């Protein structure tokens, strides 16, 4: 389990590397330190040996053996010297600091002799560095350093009065000094221990620090990502990773969040289109089944109406049957239209009149629920170009919803109409946007405020991605996927053909940043500033030829209100707040109709206080 963790692997790798490095360092350090200590002792021994040699030289020339004995014994007594011996040519110990040895013969193979006597013929000369040797006299004794100093024949020797040495002899004897290495060895061991302690503590501290860093910088964020992925894999697309860092893992987390968001949106879209598809099938079935009985009702009632001209009362009743059956026909048709998103049949019409007709239709329902209907209609309202049947449907839907919200609480519905003027910014939705090669930039898969967004590809140095702009004209909102400030050196491209969308040679008149531009078919060029927060937009054809006249109708009730959490989903098909009572289609159809009239519909609601739907429809040409 532990071996499978990335943090453990990383820590283990780093610790192993450190272990190797410090181990090699410690090894060579100990080696070189022992070597330099030994060299120092060697130098010291050499000096000592030369000192003994020169000290005894005079006595040797005068053949004063007693004085030589005395000198060697005196010097050999020093603590830092093991012993001093002098061999003659034949290997007999003639002087020694240990007087018991004097007169003993030493074999050529003894450790003090074999260096010169290794080859059959003894060496005449021995180089300085070859004179020393390190050895243990017994298996378990401490080490000793021996230095042999050959005593060469010289003129003063063979001319001396004692005539002890002939001229032909090269080496007269050997001075052998041995020094104990016990102190040196102790020093070496001490430094070995120190280095091992250093190495172990360094490795321990390093692994602790590395382990902590790996845990903090890698293990934890990776673990969080892993948890998030498990959540998402399990279908919880609302899960987000908390991002509070700027490194690659932070970027990964941000990208992951963006991906999850897109995925959630795509799923919602799929879900919605799936619902729409089943709605379409349902509508087709319903249309066929309902239209046949409706044909009989409508044909007979309209036939009766024709025949009963002159009987005012019957005529009026039949007129209601005929017009209501026609309304049924339009409802069935609007079901089909909603699924197929066909265009409305628009004529000039008086909105007040449409409201009146709608009110007439549900008068009875309101009376039954003891709901008061208050109308405050502006008599000077301009005529609007609308599909009267569809707009009537909108008002009926809203009034039925209002009366359902009031329930049995004896509330009231207030309908007000007035003419208003609106600036195109924030009202007009860009429904098609073309690049220079006429690819549509509107991406139906991504929605901002439930409107298909305008998508552009950006490239800035190493960063690239898709920007989604809010399609409302004048809106400054855009959704970016991890990107730095847009202003300079940025390329904006059509996602389909990579044509540049930057307006060449033009700068924002407000902040002099570069601007983007795209074409709306038959409605000219839309331009906008790239600087985040500037918000400059221009749509010449709309700005100059905009008819700012709108008709606003407000349908307000003092019913139960809609919880805030349900407001964003209100206009989705099959989203109902009425439980089993509703189909969840009313507001979806309403939204579709208003949108098809280039109008807007908004909600203001407070639980326990009431709900207002505000519809704004352009008066049009």
């Amino acid at each position, binding site marked *: 389990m532990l071996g499978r963790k990335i943090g453990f692997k990383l820590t283990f790798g780093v610790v192993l590397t450190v272990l190797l490095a410090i181990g090699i360092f410690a090894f060579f350090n100990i080696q070189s330190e022992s070597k330099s200590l030994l060299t120092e002792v060697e130098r010291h021994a050499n000096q000592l040996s030369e000192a003994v040699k020169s000290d005894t030289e005079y006595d040797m020339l005068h053949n004063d053996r007693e004085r030589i004995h005395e000198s060697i014994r005196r010097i050999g007594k020093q603590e830092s010297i093991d012993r001093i011996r002098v061999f003659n040519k034949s290997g007999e110990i003639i002087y020694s600091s240990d007087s018991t040895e004097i007169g003993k013969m030493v074999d050529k193979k003894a450790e003090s002799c074999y260096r010169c006597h290794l080859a059959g013929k003894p060496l005449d000369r021995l180089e300085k560095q070859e004179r020393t040797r390190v050895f243990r006299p017994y298996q378990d004794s401490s080490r000793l350093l021996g230095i042999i100093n050959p005593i060469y024949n010289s003129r003063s020797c063979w001319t001396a009065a004692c005539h002890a040495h002939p001229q032909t002899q090269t080496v007269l004897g050997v001075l052998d000094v041995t020094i104990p290495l016990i102190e040196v060895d102790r020093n070496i061991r001490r430094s070995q221990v120190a280095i091992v302690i250093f190495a172990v503590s360094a490795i321990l501290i390093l692994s602790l620090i590395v382990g902590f860093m790996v845990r903090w910088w890698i293990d934890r964020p990776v673990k969080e990502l892993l948890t998030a992925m498990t959540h998402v894999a399990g279908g919880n697309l609302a899960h987000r990773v908390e991002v509070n860092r700027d490194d690659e893992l932070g970027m990964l987390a941000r990208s992951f969040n963006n991906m999850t968001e897109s995925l959630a949106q795509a799923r919602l879209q799929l879900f919605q289109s799936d619902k729409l598809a089943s709605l379409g099938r349902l509508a087709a079935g319903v249309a066929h089944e309902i239209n046949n009985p409706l044909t009989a009702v409508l*044909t007979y009632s309209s036939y009766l109406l024709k025949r009963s001209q002159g009987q005012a009362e019957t005529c009026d009743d039949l007129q209601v049957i005929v017009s209501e059956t026609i309304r049924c026909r339009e409802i069935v048709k609007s079901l089909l239209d909603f699924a197929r998103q066909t265009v409305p049949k628009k004529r000039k019409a008086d909105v007040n009149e449409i409201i009146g007709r709608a009110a007439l239709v549900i008068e009875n329902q309101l009376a039954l629920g003891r709901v008061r209907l208050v109308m405050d209609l502006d008599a000077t309202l301009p005529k609007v170009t609308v599909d009267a049947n569809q707009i009537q449907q909108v008002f009926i839907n809203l009034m039925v919803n209002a009366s359902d919200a009031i329930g049995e609480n004896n509330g009231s519905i207030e309908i007000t109409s007035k003419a208003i003027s609106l600036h195109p910014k924030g009202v007009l939705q860009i429904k098609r946007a073309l690049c220079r090669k006429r690819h549509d930039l509107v991406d139906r898969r991504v929605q901002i405020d439930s409107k298909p967004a305008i998508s552009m590809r950006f490239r800035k140095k190493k960063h690239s991605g898709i920007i989604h702009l809010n399609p409302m004209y004048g809106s400054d909102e855009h959704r970016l996927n991890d990107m730095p400030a847009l202003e300079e050196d940025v390329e904006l491209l059509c996602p389909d053909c990579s044509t540049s969308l930057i307006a060449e040679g033009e700068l924002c008149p407000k902040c002099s940043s570069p601007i983007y531009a795209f074409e709306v078919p038959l409605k000219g060029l839309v331009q906008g500033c790239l600087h985040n927060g500037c918000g400059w937009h221009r749509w010449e054809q709309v700005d100059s030829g905009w008819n700012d006249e709108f008709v606003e109708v407000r349908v307000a009730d003092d019913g139960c209100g809609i919880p805030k959490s349900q407001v964003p989903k209100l206009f989705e098909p099959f989203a109902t707040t009425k439980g089993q009572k509703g189909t969840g289609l009313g507001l979806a159809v309403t939204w579709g109709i208003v949108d098809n009239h280039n109008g807007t519909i908004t909600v203001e609601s407070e639980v326990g206080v009431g709900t207002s739907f505000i519809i704004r429809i352009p008066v*049009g040409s």
Partner: protein
Amino acid sequence: MSLAQDILVIDDEPMVTQAVVKVCRAEGMTVTAVDSACRALRCLQENKFRLVLCDIMMHELDGFQFIEELVRRGIQTPVVMMTGYSTVEIAVKSLSATGVVDYISKPFTADELLTVILRSLRCSMLLDEAESVCLPSNGSMSYVPCPADYYRFGYVSWVLMEDEGTARIGVSDLFLRAAEGIRGFELSVPGEELVQGTPCAVAISMDGSAHGIMCPMGGKILEANVDAQSTPSVVEKDPYFRGWLYRILPPNPESDLRWLSL
């Protein structure tokens, strides 16, 4: 000819055929009702009818198979298609089929039904006359057919493709004559989007009936003929040139043209 009945109505829903029979008989027409296309074929073999009113969604033989069978058997009685599953595709397919003179979607009022039936009866009469007279040189043609290069949408409307990618659309002379005397036109406004197979304008005849003119090609209205609106006689006298209705910008004329004939 005097022995011929006026109408044969086919629908597998008895409530519908009964209603149609009642309305038509009240207007003095002779009507036979059958509940399947197979029975209708037998009826047509034995009797003569001036018009067939046929439902589309039926068991056994559906409306489209029925008209194919008529063509195979050489029966030239004009057909009005009706359906409760009224989609643009079905409307377009119906109107462009051989032998079909008109289309009506269910449910309809008695007046709407009568308007379509009376217009179709006159249309069938005009077509008959044109075939029997067959003397183009004497100028007594009962109606003026579409000029060459004009695409025809059934017997209702026409399209003329223009060089700039725009198209001019209008109503056929046969339709106007069958509607008998137009009092005025209700046209849509420029900027609106037209869809092939849906009514794009309404012609009001002298008796006050509203005749929906089915749009031959979809697209955005660039211009509506103001002359047609102010002086409807322009359209009646010269329906193919000065009497055009709209100039439109079709987004994909090729797919719409498949349903039209030259």
